[in-house]
């Protein structure tokens, strides 16, 4: 499955503060680990919301609002796109994300990317039934 890992903004990221060198190096190493594990599909960091624009819709009315936007923790500071086997695998990777030196509060949200071939919702039982049916089918061909 594919997951989008959303890094929530905080006051520092919204202020455009650059992380210290050590954190930068740690993050670089972590990203390398993701690439080496075949997990990383994409990664992007976002500018503070001061550089963003919001377009809101109300009926036929369209309103365009320039940033910055209030409530930093509702905003997104960056994201990864990962290929993992399970949500739990994504959680394990997220636990390994390096923390900045003066780590304040932070939040990371993991969301599963919609997948046309999505068959992960099968229960074990359903899967086994399908497998049995398939085996029977194959045996009858033989």
């Amino acid at each position: 499955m594919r997951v989008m890992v959303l890094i929530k903004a905080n006051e520092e990221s919204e202020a455009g503060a650059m992380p210290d060198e050590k954190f930068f190096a740690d993050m670089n190493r972590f990203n390398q680990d993701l690439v080496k594990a075949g997990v990383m599909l994409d990664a992007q960091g976002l500018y503070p919301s001061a550089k963003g624009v919001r377009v809101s819709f109300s009926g036929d009315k369209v309103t365009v609002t320039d940033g910055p936007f209030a409530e930093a923790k509702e905003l997104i500071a960056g994201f990864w796109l990962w290929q993992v086997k399970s949500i739990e695998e994504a959680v394990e990777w997220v636990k390994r994300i390096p923390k900045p030196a003066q780590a304040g509060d932070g939040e990371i949200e993991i969301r599963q990317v919609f997948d046309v071939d999505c068959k992960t919702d099968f229960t074990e039982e359903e899967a086994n039934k399908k497998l049995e049916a398939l085996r029977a089918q194959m045996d009858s061909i033989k």
Partner: protein
Amino acid sequence: MATDIHRAIEAVWRIESAKLIAGLARVVRDIGLAEDLAQDAFIAALERWPESGIPEKPGAWLMTTAKNRAVDLWRRGKLLADKHQEISRDLDEQQRFAVADFENSADDDIGDDLLRLVFTACHPVLSREARVALTLRMLGGLTTQEIARAFLVAEKTLAQRIVRAKRTLSEARVPFEVPRGAERQARLSSVLEVIYLIFNEGYSATAGDDWMRPALCEEALRLGRILAELAPSEPEVHGLVALMEIQASRVAARLGNGGEPVLLLDQNRTRWDYTLINRGLAALTRAEALGGAFGPYALQAAIAACHARARTPEETDWGRIAALYEALSQLAPSPVVELNRAVAVAMAFGPAEGLEIVDTLLSDRLLKDYYLLPSVRADFLVKLGRFDEARVELARAATLTRNESERRLLLERASRLMG
């Protein structure tokens, strides 16, 4: 919440197992034994972590546990006699370092061990099936049950296959190393073949009637991406990754709403996955930059890339595709490649040119019963206005296809030519 912790432990296993087996194999020089030790450590984790919680460095914990187990077995004389000396020396050496350093050990070392593991699991002394099973198990961290399910074999059969493969490697004293020189290329081909086999096993299955098979595509892609980092200077590795990324980008578009296959030129291109296409094109660029533009995988990827780059079917660069098929044909002559070349040539230069190529294939024994040969020939004949001959070819194609809806389609086309 016992199941939650189990799923979390499995996730740790997924992340750590290949590194663990590779690191252990360097010490015990036998990937079968290394895998057994790793499995023992995994079972210990399943027993202990639900109570203790997952340790902060789970990889180091697993490594320590596995090494202690190895030392224990060695002391009790349960390891193969001829391996004793080497192992004892290596273990002593290893124990001088804190095992907790495992996670901090140079990435290069782990990378080298993983590469050795790939090459060993894909050793030609093993059958193809055994190579595939071992690779999925050791590099992918898949369970025997998952692999058995993906290949529609009984779990017991698959388990025996793995046990036999490990024994074969051990008895043949296959060294735990990356081969050098000319052998390296031959062995690399075997590795790439295994990964592409896994991919095709997942890709060629029709959707809707299986559960594990999409996972095989994902697994093959992951293995390819890992290999591209382990052996970044090998152009064909990037060629294979490019081919798989671009093929996988079409998964959502290649089946219609009723589950029927949709041909490439009829696919809804907005349903292609452009993240994968961009990754594929980047991998192809890497292969070409390394001088690998004419490798067999890179050539196939380049053909796939021609389609991927075209925003509409009309934009397809058929002249380039025809040239790429010609290059592929020279590299690995095959009537199926020739048939594909004929189609590209016809699209680029007209049906008469295509027909000329197809006519050279009429006596080919491999294509004797291949319905696409008369079907493609009929296409060209129709475009040339030779309807009587086209009708005969369509009828012939209809008798050769095993697919019922395909046959109906062919007969319909034939009857329309009666007009």
